[in-house]
Every structure is written in C-alpha cells, then in structure tokens.
C-alpha cells in the first residue's frame, strides 16, 4: 500500500508505544477505507478507541485473543468474508498480537509464516503492529524475519531481513524431484513433468491438469525472470497430494481467484488453474522472489 491503493500484503509496522500504534493504525485504516477496502482490527482497547474516533465507526473490531484461539486459515476465511462487493477487492486487517496469551515465540513464528502463505492465496492486506519497546530483541528479530514487507514512513518497503521458511522441503511431504528446466524446451519439460508425476502415482487425468498449469507457470516465471536459461523446480508428495513448485527470482504478483489479472502472461496462468478443478495454485514468498506452488489435490477433496 503506497497511498490509496489496496493490494494483498503481509507487513509489519514497528511503533514505539500505544499512541504511535494508534496513529499508524488510523493512517492505514483511513487509506484502506478511502480505497474501498473493508477493515477488520484485532487491537487493544486503547487503539480501538482511537480508531473508532478517527474512522467514524467504519472499522470492524474483533478480539485479540482470536489471533491465538482461532486457527489462522479459519480466521482468514472470516476476514475474507467481509469482502462482499468491496471495490478495492481486498480486506484490510490490523493486528496487535497478544503475546501474553502465547509467550512461546515459536508459536508466533509459525503464525507469521502461515499468515504470509494465507495472504498469497486470499485477498488480504494484513498489518502487524509491533511495539519496539516491548518483548525484547527476540520478538523484534522474529518480526523482522517473518514479514515480507515493512511499513516505513507511510509506505511499504521490501523487508531485507526476511528469512525464507526453512526445513525440507518447503511444500512438505516426500521429495520426488528437485531439478532445473530450460523454459524454452516446453515439450521436453512436459514429458519430464509427466514422467515424474507418473512416478509420484498420479493418474493420467490429474497429470494432464497439473502439467497444463505447470507449463503455464514455467512460462510465466520465465517471462517474469527475463527468459533465464534454467528454472528451479521441485516435486513433493504427501500422501495422495502432490505439490510442484516453480521458483521465481524476481517475484510474482499474487493471483487471486476473483481478480482477473491484467497482465496477459499472468492471465494465461490464472486461466489454466480455472480449467483444472483438481489443481490449486498459490504464489508464496521465497526470499526476495516467489514460489509458484501447484498442487494436485487429493481426488476425494478436489
């Protein structure tokens, strides 16, 4: 958010004390409301009182404890339900994490990474207000390591300290293949995907749907990265679900189910997912870039 626009984002806004938290929250909420974005705020009583005064009651308030007690995917669904026909196409969420309710920082590390993944799949602009005067350096380091974007002087900047999620493999499950593909050799690439996905146990119908989306994903990433000679790809299997990822160094804009991309290359990828009901596509952060994760869903859930 650089002014009046509203786009999916997971950002951290550092502040010093409650008054500054209220000022930042009010600024964010006013901009969001002006852009036509509904606003949900999980904030303490002081910030709530300030926001109520400064936004003429247009903000929906929710309890902070929900950030601990409600599973984040379910909470994200609740946030998204506020979207309706909002012109901005994004729900703005402002959070003050109740660290006292969950003192273990590991919990919050997981929560922040989960939020980043959820924002990649849903029309959400989530801002976490982090007080630099509370909680010690570990809490600040956690915030710096887990938010892709920082709110600085009224504008978003990429977070240089973001640490990509660690652990093998990023998509979970058993690694089936980890390789590089020449994006210009599309027919050979399709044969490669088919062979590996056959080995992963996918039937022909699911393979064909997945390969269509992967073909478009490789083409999209190649276009975004400026026609590189090779792209890194991975395939993992977790039970009957198979996940494939294509890594994009330069970053890929989020693809939202309800928002038709204006860029033709992104549109082709977005349409490919639309015709493949047993496939899901998510754009997830990966360092300074993105991972395009394409999943062949469990046939019983597809």
């Amino acid at each position, binding site marked *: 958010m650089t002014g009046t626009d509203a786009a999916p984002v997971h950002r951290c806004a550092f502040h010093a004390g409650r008054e500054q938290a209220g000022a930042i929250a009010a600024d964010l909420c006013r901009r969001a409301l002006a852009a036509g974005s509904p606003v949900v705020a999980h904030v303490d009583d002081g910030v709530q009182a300030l926001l109520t005064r400064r936004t003429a009651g247009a903000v929906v308030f929710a309890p902070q404890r929900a950030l601990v007690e409600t599973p984040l995917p379910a909470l994200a669904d609740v946030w998204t339900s506020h979207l309706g026909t909002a012109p901005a196409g994004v729900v703005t969420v402002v959070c003050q994490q109740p660290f006292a309710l969950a003192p273990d920082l590991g919990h919050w590390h997981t929560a922040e990474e989960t939020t980043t993944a959820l924002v990649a799949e849903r029309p959400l602009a989530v801002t976490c207000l982090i007080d630099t005067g509370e909680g010690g350096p570990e809490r600040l380091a956690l915030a710096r390591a887990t938010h892709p974007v920082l709110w600085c002087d009224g504008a978003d900047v990429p977070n240089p300290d973001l640490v990509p999620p660690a652990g093998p493999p990023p998509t979970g499950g058993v690694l089936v293949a980890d390789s590089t593909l020449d994006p210009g050799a*599309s*027919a050979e690439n399709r044969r490669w995907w088919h062979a590996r996905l056959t080995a992963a146990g996918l039937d*022909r119908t699911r393979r064909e749907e997945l390969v*269509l989306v992967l*073909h478009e994903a490789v083409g999209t990433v190649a276009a975004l990265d400026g026609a590189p000679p090779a792209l890194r790809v991975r395939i993992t299997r977790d039970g009957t679900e198979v996940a494939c990822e294509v890594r994009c160094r330069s970053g890929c804009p989020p693809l939202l189910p309800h928002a038709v991309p204006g860029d033709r290359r992104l549109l082709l990828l977005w*349409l490919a997912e639309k015709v493949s009901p047993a496939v899901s596509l998510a754009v997830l952060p990966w360092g300074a870039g993105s991972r395009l994760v394409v999943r062949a869903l469990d046939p019983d859930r597809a």
Partner: protein
Amino acid sequence: MTGGGHAFVLLDSEEAHTQVVGDFVVEGVRRGECVLLAGLGGREQRLWSRLRRAGVVGEGWQPSATTAVRLVPPDPDRLPEAVAGALAEGYPGVRFSGAITTPGVNAFEAAVASLTAEHPLTVLCPYFRSTLEPGQHEALTALHDTEVDVAPVYDDGVFRLTRRGELLYLAGELDSGNADALRAVLQATLAAGGRPASWDVADLHFLDVGAADSLVAAAAGPPGLTLVGASRLTARLVRLLVDRHPDRAVDLVDAPADVLLDGPPDDAGGGALR
C-alpha cells in the same frame, strides 16, 4: 486402406507414426479384423493412447494373445502362424503393421508378400523417411501394391496438421511458443474460403492456454468453429475462453463412440471391437 493388400507409407515423425498406424489399427478393429503388430520399439503406449482416444479400447487396456490387437514377435518366420491362428479363431481378416526404423528393405517384406496372396491379410509397412537409403523409395514402390500418401499440412515432430476434405486434424502438442504451428492451423483454416471451420482434435493431447486463445480468437468468429473429439480438459479450456468473449462461438462435438467387446466376432460382418 481397405481390406487386403500390401502398402507402404513414408513417415516424417513419431506423431505421424502414431496417427497413421493408429488409423490403420482402428480401421481394422472397426472392420472386425485381428490386428498384429511387430517391432513397435517402445511406441506401444503412444499407440494404445491413440486407440483409447479413438474409443476402440478403454483406459488401461493392454494387448494379449486373445485381444483383437496383438503384439507378435519381430520374427518373419512366425508371422504365418499368427495369421493362420487369427483366421482360425473366426476373424474375417487380419492386419499387420509395426514400425520400420532400420535402413534397407525390412525382413518382413518377403514373408508378407506371399501371405497377402494367400490370406485376407492387409499389410501396412511404415518406413521412416529419415532411414531411407538412396534408391530405396523406388524399390519400395516396386515391392508394394500402393504407397499411402500421408503428406501433412504441417509436421514438426511435436505437432502435426493434416487435412481430409473439409476437416483439419490437429495431433500432438500445440503450445503458444510454436508460432509456425499456430500459423499453419490458421492458414489452413483460412484456406477453407469462409466456410465454417471444423477441427478434429481427438489426437491433440496438449493445448496450452495461449494457443487455445489464439486459435479460438481467430477461428471462432463468423462463420464459426466446430471442434470434434476434444478431451475434457481441452473442452473446458475452450469453453472458458469462449465464455470470456461472447462474440466467439465454438461447437464441441464428441468423436464417434464405439462399443468394446472381448471376443472374436460372432459373424463376419465386422464392427465388433475387442
């Protein structure tokens, strides 16, 4: 090819082999004949997929000694026994083909020459043009009853376009990076002189979004486009693209369906599939 005879064909790609030999097999099965195949050399799955798309076998079908389509050893001396056995089972005719990828005249030629004279046997000898030796085309012409002309409108080894009458046959894989192939389809469509375009896409096993969008945009305006035999995925893709552009109209028509059976024909009338 109709029943009986000994023909050869010159192929320029694997896609051509799948299509031409596939058609030969499908025609034989539809006539109720037994089809013997030798020396496919790893082309089996492509061919079985072609038979599946044509509707003459089901998902996961595999040949055996009792199915209407059979693999026989690449040994010319054992072919007479296989032909005689099929005829003894009640098949009204037998077909024989495979894939000839080695230089020179194939060793089966001598064996089938006498068999076609004695039995209701139809033989298609598929030679790859790239393996022909100097003067071999003339030798093959002298050795066979006919040469089957399968010259494509376009064939780059990945995508193949052929025309039969008003119908264009799109086979293989077509993606938006293959500008030559897209151009070939559009030019062949325009050559129809303003008549509604009809494309058989039953053998088109990959079509990406960009290629589909380009083709539908160019061909689906007046006078309209009919797609025959589109896979479920291709049909969904085309419908999605058409829905985004109300000025486009595409009719999706199923390929002719067939009935699968499991034994020799009850009579010589043909049409039974195993």
